[in-house]
């Protein structure tokens, strides 16, 4: 399987403060990879760094390569990045209410990307392709929706539009940053379904960012667990979710399991996610970890056959043989 996206040692910094460190990940064609962690763990920054869309004042280090593009995307300039964005790689954002331009018609916003990347040269053709695409993502009466402005659509409908924009040029890589978090539970499943169908139809690679373990379990093949700006565990979803090794992963799983209680109270991970840059040296999780010892004061090394499988924990959860 060829890797569509390959990031190595990716970091995000502001000044000399490291917000994301040493993230290594690959996503293959047709593969669906989840990136999970609590808010503040650096998931969104990782996604923006991959797209080259970090906000001002933040910069990326390491390397990001997209299959078929010779340049390293980290440190590439706009002339190299702009033709790739929306064409080879695209992104669905978390907040559908603000992700669309309030003063431009839906159809024009969808058609814009196609015109830009020369999928259609004529405006009229791009417009009708946009309507088709809106139909494809399941908007009722797509022709009408194309003429509408964002405020006339519901949150779920807007997220479908954002997905349509992202899928417009049949990208090789789709990055979704919490695409369903802001939506009603009833709508979530529909949007998830259209994303997975859209990706499957195009045989595209999917990097799916969420804090919702249930979503990862239904959508993804592989998963990366992120905490404190670092990948702490990775592997097949079934493997990681049933036999977690990193103490953070097991805590996260225990906390998300509503059936497991401790004296009638829901299980939680003690403490809270520290402020960015205030994570302890060594193992980033050690100040919240019951198993932490002085050995955790040095950065744990990666235990596993490859960066896609393994964990970084000195005291991993024992696996029943």
């Amino acid at each position, binding site marked *: 399987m060829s890797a569509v996206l390959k990031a190595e040692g990716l970091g995000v910094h502001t000044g000399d403060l490291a917000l994301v460190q040493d993230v290594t990940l690959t996503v293959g064609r047709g593969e669906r990879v989840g990136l999970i962690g609590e808010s503040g763990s650096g998931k969104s920054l990782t996604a923006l760094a991959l797209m080259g869309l970090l906000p001002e004042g933040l910069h990326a280090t390491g390397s990001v390569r997209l299959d078929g593009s010779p340049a390293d995307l980290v440190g590439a300039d706009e002339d190299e990045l702009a033709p790739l964005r929306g064409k080879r790689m695209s992104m669905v954002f978390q907040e559908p209410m603000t992700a669309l331009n309030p003063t431009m018609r839906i159809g024009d916003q969808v058609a814009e990307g196609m015109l830009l990347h020369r999928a259609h040269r004529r405006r009229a053709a791009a417009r009708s392709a946009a309507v088709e695409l809106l139909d494809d993502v399941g908007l009722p009466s797509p022709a009408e929706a194309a003429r509408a402005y964002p405020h006339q659509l519901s949150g779920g409908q807007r997220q479908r539009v954002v997905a349509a924009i992202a899928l417009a040029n049949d990208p090789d890589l789709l990055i979704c940053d919490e695409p369903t978090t802001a939506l009603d539970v009833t709508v979530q499943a529909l949007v998830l379904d259209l994303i997975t169908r859209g990706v499957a139809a195009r045989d595209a690679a999917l990097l799916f960012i969420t804090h919702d373990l249930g979503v990862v379990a239904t959508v993804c093949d592989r998963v990366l667990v992120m905490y404190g700006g670092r990948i702490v565990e990775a592997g097949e979803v079934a493997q990681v979710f049933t036999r977690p090794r990193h103490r953070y992963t097991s805590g996260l799983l225990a906390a998300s399991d509503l059936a497991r209680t401790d004296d009638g109270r829901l299980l939680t991970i003690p403490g809270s996610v520290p*402020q960015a*840059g205030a994570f302890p040296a060594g193992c980033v999780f050690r100040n919240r970890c019951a198993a932490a010892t002085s050995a955790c004061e040095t950065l744990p090394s990666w235990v596993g056959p490859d960066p896609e499988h393994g964990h970084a924990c000195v005291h991993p959860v024992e696996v029943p043989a």
Partner: protein
Amino acid sequence: MRRRSGTLVIGGSLVAMVILAALVSFVWTPHDPGLVVPQDRLAGPSGKHWLGADKLGRDELSRLMVGARTTLLVGIVSVGVAALIGVPLGLVAAMTWRWLGEILMRVSDFVLAFPAVLLAIMLTAIYGSGVVIAMIAIGISTIPAFARVVRSGALQVMSTEYVVAARAAGRRPVGIGLRHVLPNVTSLIIVQASVSFAIAILAEAALSFLGLGAPPDVPSWGRMLQESQSLLQQAPRLAIVPGVAIALAVLGFNLLGDGLRDLLDPRLQQRRVEVQR
């Protein structure tokens, strides 16, 4: 952040300079600002007249210092009165019935259609010119700014949880207003006062430039500028001196307002936290 505090320092220093000039002028000026010395007519800068002398031989620096007094007096009275009226209006508009707030805001929209200088001209036509007329006109046209700023700030505070809780606990509106709302909009009021002061200086200068402000025997920057107009050939300096004074004073209060806003506005601190997400 560092550059911002630079704004505050520059603005503060300029304002301090104007205030200092005005205060010193009460006890000392290089010469009597009204003293006519015919042989010093249009004299250039020298040891005797640091900034030269005007067409009557009056010392330019002395007139400039006393002029600062006029500028500040008009500013303090008009902005002060506007705040005294505008702040309670804004609070009432935010804290009582919605319709009252709407009406007050419509009225303030309406007052904005009468700029200070226009109002002053109209009043002058009836009552004759004078500093008091200038103060009244500038004061009236400054009220809406305070009312609006305080209302929007107060509305924000009113929707915070602690105020909602206080209201639910049955606290009286007046109590809530004085205890919770007013302290939280104080910074907005201070910033607005600084910005309004700059606008008041501009209006006062325009009025005295038109000969509608302070009487001719009271030195004022606007009038000094107007008198220089016929002498641009011989002594352009006479235009530049009061002109620079006006511009620096306005710049000072504007920068002070900007600097204070950054210093006091809690929303900006929030924005900084957001970046760290």
